[in-house]
């Protein structure tokens, strides 16, 4: 499969001004909504229930907003589902401005190490650029790539690999 040409700024402009669905990179999430992959990472409050989550807290961000977006193989294009997630993120981040933000880019294991480091960086960068377009100050966001070194899901099929192709918006600094 050919990688979509990733001129993220151009792509974001298209997405913002010409509608939300970007041809050729529509979301195929293997049935997983973006924020469902916070499984086990959402802290003490667990899944779904937002009852005990303090509004404006990092838990609120992870549980109720969704801290991550997913990517197609070898792609750093923000999917339609990812755009929705980032719009929620941007809205929340504009209201809760006290956190330093680190965007972690990740790749699945089906690539070579060096390329995946760069691909993770490209995904983090595309995510950051998208949030900037939505009004989140760029100087508050740093990016880091973990390549394929920090999979969130460990298994051996395609649906699992798709959970690892992600960019995670972390409040307060890198998570690992």
């Amino acid at each position, binding site marked *: 499969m*050919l*990688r979509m040409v*990733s*001129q*993220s700024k151009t792509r974001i402009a298209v997405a913002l001004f010409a509608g939300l669905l970007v041809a050729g990179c529509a979301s195929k999430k293997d049935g997983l909504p973006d924020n469902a992959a916070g499984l086990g990472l959402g802290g003490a409050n667990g899944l779904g229930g937002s009852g005990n989550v303090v509004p404006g807290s990092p838990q609120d961000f992870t549980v109720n907003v969704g801290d991550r977006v997913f990517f197609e193989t*070898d792609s*750093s294009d923000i999917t339609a589902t990812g755009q929705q997630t980032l719009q929620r993120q941007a809205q929340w981040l504009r209201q809760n401005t006290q956190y330093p933000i680190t965007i972690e880019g990740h790749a699945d*294991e*089906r*690539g*070579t*190490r*060096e*390329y995946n*480091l*760069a*691909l993770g*960086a*490209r995904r983090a*960068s*595309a995510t950051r*650029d998208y949030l900037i377009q939505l009004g989140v100050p760029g100087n508050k966001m740093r990016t*880091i*790539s*973990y*390549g394929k*070194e*920090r*999979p*969130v*899901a*460990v*298994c*051996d099929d395609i649906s699992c690999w798709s959970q690892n192709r992600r960019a995670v918006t972390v409040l307060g600094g890198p998570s*690992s």
Partner: protein
Amino acid sequence: MPWWSLDITQGNVQPLPIAIADFQSQDGLGKQISDVVSADLRRSGLFAPIDPSAFIQKGLGPDVSPNFQDWTVINAQALVVGRVSPEADGRLRVEFRLWDVFAGQQLDGQQFYTNPDNWRRVGHIIADAIYERITGEKGYFDSRVVFVGESGDKANRVKRLAIMDQDGANVRYLTDGRDLVLTPRFSPNRQEVTYMSFGNGEPRVYLLQLETGQREIVGNFPGMTFSPRFSPDGQKVIMSLQQNGNANIYAMDLRSRATTRLTSTSAIDTSPSYSPDGTRIVFESDRGGRQQLYTMGADGSNQQRISFGDGSYSTPVWSPRGDLIAFTKQSGGQFQIGVMRPDGSGERILTSGFHNEGPTWAPNGRVLMFFRDQRGGGGPQLYSIDLTGYNEQKVPTPGYASDPAWSPLLD
């Protein structure tokens, strides 16, 4: 050269039957050294050491001429004998002789003096001498491998730099596992290793002095640096610099600290590797869509694509002989290790499976080491394969292991 001289450039080699007698010594050390010799030669795939229980002439040392008929009867083409004796100053004297059994002639005979702690090295040096005398090619046994030792579960793997002999002996860890470390590579003089580490803040390329343990960041770049490798003269480190969505290749002179940008595309350019004469560089780039291999002059000139097969190509490494480039290829859901000529012709896949990655050349350019991973929650292991593709061997490591890099021959 004897009549049975091995031609290892051919595709399929019949291993040479060789008798390796236990080296004489007052303790078990003689046998331990000759066992190292035997294991090296066997793993090369070019030699078939004969079971010593078949030997007719027992206890043979280097001082007497063998009874050649006793060795032709068991079909030994070559015979190795030796002896280890202590010197007054505490060192060991290790002697060996290599005989051509059918011609009844000595092919080689040498002696070495060494600190007793280095007994395995002496075995490797003798194995290299035998390999070279019989194949006409330099050996590769007296060499080391730097790699990443892995432990813990896959989602939070602990990775430590480690160094070992090429046969997996004498493992020593160089980092403590607190920082994620990747892709170590030897300097040509084997005194230093360049690698990537996550440390605090931005992931960077580092330089580690093996003798002192001293380490430093290479260069002062405004972003993640990764995928480092030394130039053949050891004066430069070449690496990728990540800026936003793009990775470009830079060379840094280690003395002047001057940096030169060699590629400038809106693509991922990485995994650079110099030709052994230092005039050219092979690297991978996705500038055309998927990852493919490209070559360029050492100054970045004349960039041209060399891989055109079905699939994507990455992690190219130029052979120390200059004649081939090894790579990882992804095709049809498989990860393969292969080689091609520097102009892209003559592609051959040596091994294929779920995940094979990151080849590194033995110093003689005849054998590759790489890592292999499996589906699911296990971890990677190191393997070697020769250029025929027939002789694949697992390289023993204490735990999971990845990112091997072979040293030049020691001296």
